[in-house]
């Protein structure tokens, strides 16, 4: 029992590390990316339609590659960045690269929903473009962005299970190797319970925060 607990604990830590880091990177990179996608379109604040199309296509390419394949394809790149292609840290690279365009597209939708009239009002009151991005776009879309980030974190928890393939460990890997390959039902059930608790907690916190910040 204590061995199971130890493995679960280690798996949970690995998962939290992978998901936490990659989601954090997705947050930091995804929001600027989403802002760029929204503002660089035709007639946007920083209109650059060509570049917008190019970046949009790159985002789509990364969005369409299945995570397992992306992970393997990125091995040389991962080795370049973290010095190894194996283990938890190595998994963070492909997870971040998958999560960023995913989150950016969701955040983009929330940013687009900001009423055009608010942008016009901000221009009329003498706001410059950076003010509009900060005070209007980001703050008005914040509840939606938080909802989108919650979805991203949950899907990263999912994707991190596949990171076991490059020896990253984590809960998913535990369930697969012990539960599925060794027919150890007890481990599998325990992992599932922990995952359910984790996803529930993430979703609950995200919903709570989004609701708190929504004054509409």
């Amino acid at each position: 029992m204590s061995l199971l607990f130890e493995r679960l604990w280690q798996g949970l830590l690995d998962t939290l590390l992978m998901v936490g880091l990659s989601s954090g990177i997705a947050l930091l990179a995804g929001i600027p990316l989403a802002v760029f996608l929204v503002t660089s379109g035709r007639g946007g604040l920083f209109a650059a339609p060509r570049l917008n199309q190019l970046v949009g296509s790159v985002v789509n390419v990364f969005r369409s590659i299945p995570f397992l394949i992306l992970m393997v394809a990125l091995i040389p790149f991962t080795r370049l960045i973290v010095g190894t292609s194996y283990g938890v840290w190595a998994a963070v690279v492909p997870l971040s690269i998958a999560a960023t365009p995913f989150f950016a597209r969701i955040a983009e939708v929330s940013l687009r929903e900001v009423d055009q009239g608010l942008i016009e009002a901000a221009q009329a009151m003498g706001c410059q473009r950076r003010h509009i991005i900060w005070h209007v776009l980001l703050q008005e879309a914040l509840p939606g962005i938080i909802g989108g980030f919650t979805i991203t974190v949950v899907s990263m928890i999912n994707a991190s299970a596949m990171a076991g393939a490059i020896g990253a460990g984590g809960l998913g890997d535990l369930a697969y190797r012990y539960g599925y390959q060794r027919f150890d039902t007890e481990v599998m059930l325990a992992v599932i319970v922990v995952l359910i608790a984790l996803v529930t907690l993430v979703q609950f916190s995200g919903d709570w925060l989004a609701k708190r910040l929504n004054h509409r």
Partner: protein
Amino acid sequence: MSKAAAQIFKDEPLASTPFALGHAEANTCTTQRPDPALARIHLQFEGLGKTYRTEQGPVHALHDINLDIRHGEIFGIIGHSGAGKSSLLRTINRLEQATEGQLLIEGQNIAELDEQQLVKLRRRTGMIFQHFNLLSAKTVRENIELPLKVAGIPRGVRRRKVDALLALVGLYGKSETYPAQLSGGQKQRVGIARALVHDPEILLCDEATSALDPETTQSILRLLQEINQHLGLTIVLITHEMSVIRDICDRVVVLDKGRIVEQGHVWEVFGRPKHNTTQTLLAPLQHNLPADLAKRLTPQATWPDDAKVLALYFSGQQREPDLAALSNSLNGRVRLLDGGIERIQGHAVGRLVVAVEASPFTASELVQRVQAWVDRAEVLGYVAVV
């Protein structure tokens, strides 16, 4: 205190402005203040036009607009939707760029302003909107102080300024609420406070009362009128409601398909609408002939002693209707059937429908005789005397 901050406070007495909101006598003020039509020119449109390039070819949103708006004036722009009023208003703070002609503000061609100067122009030009356009994530205070914040005004100065404005628009004590908790009228008051925060010289109103109920509309119009008088700023408003023009504007232009089809003092345009568009816009305010009367009216006299029904128009050129003179000139028993006289900017404008019985004159003779006392008269028909 920075230079900009010092400037904000040039009108410190704003907070202690002695007028109380809510019980100002809105309509009496218009006659007391000096005629803004005699003031210096504030905004001058010279052959201004706006053409959009679309795949179906060019679309002329505005065409050859020539217009002077004067200091301290409340200037109305009216037209049906799609007439170009919104585009015209937006050329003033360059939310829309004119493609032909030019607009001079205090003699300065605004097309020549660079990015920084444009921001300054916009700070001197407040704007309010039909749907208020308040930021939902910010409190009332944060909404009002945002224009100051982005201009780098220090916190303490912002605080005092916002407090003064909240008092001015009658929202004291609402500073920490979010817009979603306010009524439509209160939201527009926040919008007005936000528009005034940089002490602008011009206030643009984009259908500012179109989303409000009639009572709230009146209170917002009163507030705009008070602001116009006490702060002396020029107000340009667009609307599709003639009643808004009648209630607060000094002069008006009527736009149709991007062109000015009629302009003048409000009482002139109301008293003698020339263009078709003006007449259709005025229609909701006009009395139609009551249905029962219209039914009894015949185009020809059926009996010699039928009463002649005349419509007498007063377009504000003359004094108020002189009832004794009317009665004398019509020479018979004169009954007032319908109608009304409104005072617009101190001019009596309206229409009276009268029935004349037992008069020795024919209907067309009556029209001739009454001419001197009315602006225009016409024969509507005859009714049998019961």
